[in-house]
């Protein structure tokens, strides 16, 4: 499952959010269109950057890729396998779990991504879920902590960290799942230049190791540093 090419394929995707307040009117369909006939192909080992103004639908594309939303029209395939609401929302869905292991999603707002009592537990959460032996979980946690220079924060509560530190923890805890595709929604927004350079270095190494990265950003220097293929929206 999910081993085909290309890794991500969105074909003629349309998407409209249900306007929460509008669902009781009856008279209006109450939907707010965001994507219309959108196409995107991301090959394995590629780094792709989504560029575009605010509100154009970059986050929506990322949520669709992570199966948090589903296209109202068109098709989404991950690794050649169609990703549909029916498969993902099926009870006991191995499909959804396999998909979520293959795709790591770093939210734009790290505050709503971190829920464990300490940074160490946050990073260990994914590998523990995967049922890896304790020694392997510990090895991964230590490796990731070193990679993201988080040694000082291991026992700290994520909510007590600064915005930039939270962002690094968010990227680190997703990377500990070793996904095929890292999807990062404006990952360098709250980072200073030093931490931005750190995250860019890690992502670049990740791509060179054969993994795939999809980011949305407004910073052209990041795109250049990553050598990313640019997809302009809007």
């Amino acid at each position, binding site marked *: 499952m999910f081993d085909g090419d290309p890794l991500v394929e969105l074909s003629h995707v349309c998407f409209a959010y249900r306007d*929460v307040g509008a669902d009781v*009117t009856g008279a209006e369909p109450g939907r707010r269109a965001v994507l219309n006939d959108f196409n995107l192909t991301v090959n394995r080992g590629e780094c792709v950057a989504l560029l575009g103004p605010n509100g154009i639908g970059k986050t929506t594309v990322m949520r669709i890729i992570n199966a948090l939303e589903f296209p109202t029209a068109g098709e989404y395939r991950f690794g050649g396998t169609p990703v549909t609401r029916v498969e993902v929302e099926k009870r006991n869905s191995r499909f959804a779990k396999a998909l979520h292991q293959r795709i790591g999603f770093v939210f734009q707002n790290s505050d709503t991504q971190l829920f464990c009592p300490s940074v160490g537990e946050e990073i260990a*959460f994914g590998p523990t879920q995967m049922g890896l032996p304790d020694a392997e979980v510990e090895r991964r946690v230590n490796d990731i902590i070193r990679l993201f220079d988080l040694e000082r924060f291991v026992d700290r509560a994520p909510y007590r960290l600064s915005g930039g530190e939270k962002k690094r923890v968010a990227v680190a805890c997703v990377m500990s799942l070793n996904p095929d595709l890292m999807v990062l929604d404006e990952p360098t927004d709250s980072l200073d230049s030093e931490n931005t350079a750190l995250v860019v270095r890690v992502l*670049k190494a990740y791509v060179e190791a054969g993994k795939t990265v999809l980011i949305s950003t407004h910073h052209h220097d990041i795109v250049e540093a990553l050598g990313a293929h640019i997809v302009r929206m809007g």
Partner: protein
Amino acid sequence: MASLPAWLGEPERYEPVDDRSSFIEHNLAHLGGMLEQVGAPLPVTHSPVDRALCAVSPSLRIIGVPAAIVCVNATRNMLFAYVMLAVVLVMLAMRPARMIVAIVKPALAVCVLSFILSAPSVFIGQYSAPVRLVVKAFVAVSLVIALARTVPWNHLIAGLKGVGCPDSVIYVCDVTVQFIDILGRSMVSLLDALRLRSVGRDSHKLMSAGRVMGALFLRANTQAKQMAEAMVCRGFNGHYHVRRDPLVTVPNAIYALVIAAMIAFAVYCG
């Protein structure tokens, strides 16, 4: 160039095992979705009854709905309750289908609960008690939900100022409503984050749900402090100032007359 650990350079050979989402996860997600809707913008409703009611001052409606509820519950003669039930049903029938569902579903749930609670009274000879309670509960709940569904929260809060509520009460209501919405969104995002990283069997589902709730309350606490500080920085001195709409208008006068007639009829029915 950062040097990655060897395992990050290799494809992950992971086959997930079966695992059910827990009852508590489902319910938290549902609760988050509901909280999200509280502060959501209200739709422009096209029903004639709501168009007419929109012209009435929220302050008057805040007085009118509780007055109707008190009258329905205070009158012993069921004629008044049945008349009010008829009025509520007529108003419901003039609304769009989805609005009817949004009002009737919770109202019926309260009716069922009222019936279950009052059913034992039949055994002591109070045969009409369950029907009385169900009718009164339906009228009261329908009126409150219709008010909440058709008047935006900010108008209701401004209406509170109009009926002389203290600023401290308005502040608590205002912040609570805003935070219910924000908390709902945060809860949905945190549950999404939990779901995305729950890629295997979680033998501590309750603990995971507890962590989400814990993170949510910590976030709420921080945000409440930040918001209070932001309000102070922008000159908030504890007093709410709302735009005062003219109170003497034709729709307000008609509404006030209807409420007065309703109270008079309730007194007449006894």
